[in-house]
């Protein structure tokens, strides 16, 4: 869907490239997360995809077409690509309703289609339309403004979304909630998304695919599991942090390591110590600690399918991270 081929960007007046020979591909319906330290070129990549910045080398393709083709009008291109900018950038002189309706109005949608669309979008991002629609940005909190920013980018239902730290300006608890809500939305929307963050946890949680950047270069890319279980170098290891194993547990479903049995052990029953098969292994660990048990029962819906023990978890950790240790 989106493809970058050896893309370079050297800003005028600088010698060090902001983006250096970057190639990767984002498949349709996937979330591709760019992660890396400040200044590593994440924003610049997004801005090249919608042509706010022209690359100095390489090619960018959307649905097989080069975005730099003469026939592509950058303004029209951008109306087809939702963009959530890092600084939010709501228009302070316009109401929330007008802000969200910006692209549909540019596309000359009929007014009677815009009103319900705005209402729907505000509800979708968890805002009360009657309450906020006629307010101005300065009357909203940072988190609410970010939601409006996301709603604005979604307004014309673009197949592609570029999201630059869309949940950056909120505290970790609200961020977690916004992430959950967004993933739930994405299940229905199936958009192709480029998502920027400098939070590796957010990347692991949101990404189907992760691109790790450092100093303008692509250091490693792959699924979260691939990156966690096989970090390419010291930089990636540092980025992932020392709790790599725990993160892996978050990514593994309990059903993958369950010891199948029909009999419910007594201790599990007594301590009421159960989890669901689709819960991450992390949850098994938490439940064990909470219930003070070293065995946990696993259910698939109502039916019991087996157990996970403390030993099983340790073995699993050794298996996935031990090979390259």
């Amino acid at each position, binding site marked *: 869907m989106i493809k970058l081929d050896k893309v370079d960007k050297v800003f005028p007046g600088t010698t060090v490239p902001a983006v250096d020979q970057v190639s990767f591909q984002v498949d349709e319906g996937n979330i591709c997360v760019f992660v890396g330290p400040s200044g590593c070129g994440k924003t610049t990549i997004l801005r090249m995809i919608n042509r706010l910045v022209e690359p100095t080398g390489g090619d960018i393709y959307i649905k097989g077409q080069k975005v730099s083709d003469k026939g592509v009008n950058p303004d029209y291109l951008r109306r087809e690509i939702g963009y959530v900018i890092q600084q939010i950038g709501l*228009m302070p002189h316009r109401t929330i309703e007008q802000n969200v309706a*910006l*692209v549909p109005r*540019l596309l000359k949608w009929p007014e009677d289609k815009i009103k319900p669309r705005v209402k729907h979008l505000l509800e979708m991002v968890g805002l009360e339309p009657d309450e906020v629609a006629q307010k*101005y940005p300065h009357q909203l909190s940072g988190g609410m403004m970010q939601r409006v920013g996301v709603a604005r980018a979604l307004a014309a239902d673009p197949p592609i979304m570029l999201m630059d730290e869309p949940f950056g300006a909120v505290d970790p608890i609200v961020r977690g909630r916004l992430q959950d809500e967004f993933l739930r939305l994405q299940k229905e929307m199936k958009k192709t998304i480029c998502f920027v963050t400098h939070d590796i946890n957010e990347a692991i949680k949101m990404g189907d695919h992760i691109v790790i950047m450092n100093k303008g270069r692509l250091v490693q890319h792959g699924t979260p599991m691939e990156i966690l279980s096989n970090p390419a170098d010291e930089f990636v290891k540092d980025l992932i942090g020392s709790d790599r194993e725990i993160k892996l547990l978050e990514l593994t479903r309990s059903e993958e390591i369950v010891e199948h049995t029909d009999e419910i052990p007594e201790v599990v029953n007594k301590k009421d110590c159960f989890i669901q098969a689709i819960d991450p292994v992390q949850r098994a660990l938490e439940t064990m600690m909470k219930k003070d048990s070293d065995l946990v029962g696993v259910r698939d819906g109502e039916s019991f399918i087996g157990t996970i023990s403390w030993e099983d978890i340790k073995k699993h950790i050794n298996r996935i991270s031990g090979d390259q240790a």
Partner: protein
Amino acid sequence: MELFGGSTGWFAGFYDEYLGFVSFIIRRWDQVIEYTFNHFSLVLTVMFFSLVLWISVGLLISRYEKLANTAFGIGNILFVIPSISLFGIFITIPMLGLGRTSAALALILYAMMPMVRNVYRGIKSVEWPIIEAGRGMGMSPLQILFQIQIPMAWPVIFAGIRVTVVMITGIATVATYIGERNLGRFIHHGIARESADMIIAGAVLVSIIAVLLDFILGKIEFKITSPGLRREQDQN
């Protein structure tokens, strides 16, 4: 003085001492009307051309940075020239001579500095993330100018218009020395006749016009400025 029952009592004394200009205005009512009308029409003419000309120039230099310094240089030089000189220079140009054209041209030049500067500042004060968002949503440069930059710059542009109107109203009085028959004439003749009443009458009337115009513009500004921008103004 009959108006207030003769020249006895404390009020009459107070009136003679401090409010002589009021009876002057009443006595010369016809002239007051004529001069006020002329004053108004000169200011409005000047403002009309200034708005068209200087807002365009302001927008132009906000786009073409290189022109900005030249424009500000010219504006600054014009501003250092005393009003009376500017009027004087224009009347010695044969095509123009004494009268309204010279007066209006000089005043339009005076308006350059505050108007152009504020338009430029206002446009430049729009933070780049907002422009970036506009571009990112696919707005064309003209749409960004008319839907983002100008509406957001309104408070600053309007401040420039108000300052200019007040200034032009005041300086227009000096045009009486090149033949304008406006409220400055009361001051001009007041000096010649050493009449405090006449001078004060002229000064008060001009100030009233200036304050009035400023007030009306303030109302208009409030009407057309987005409520979303008002809080930011309060903070200044």
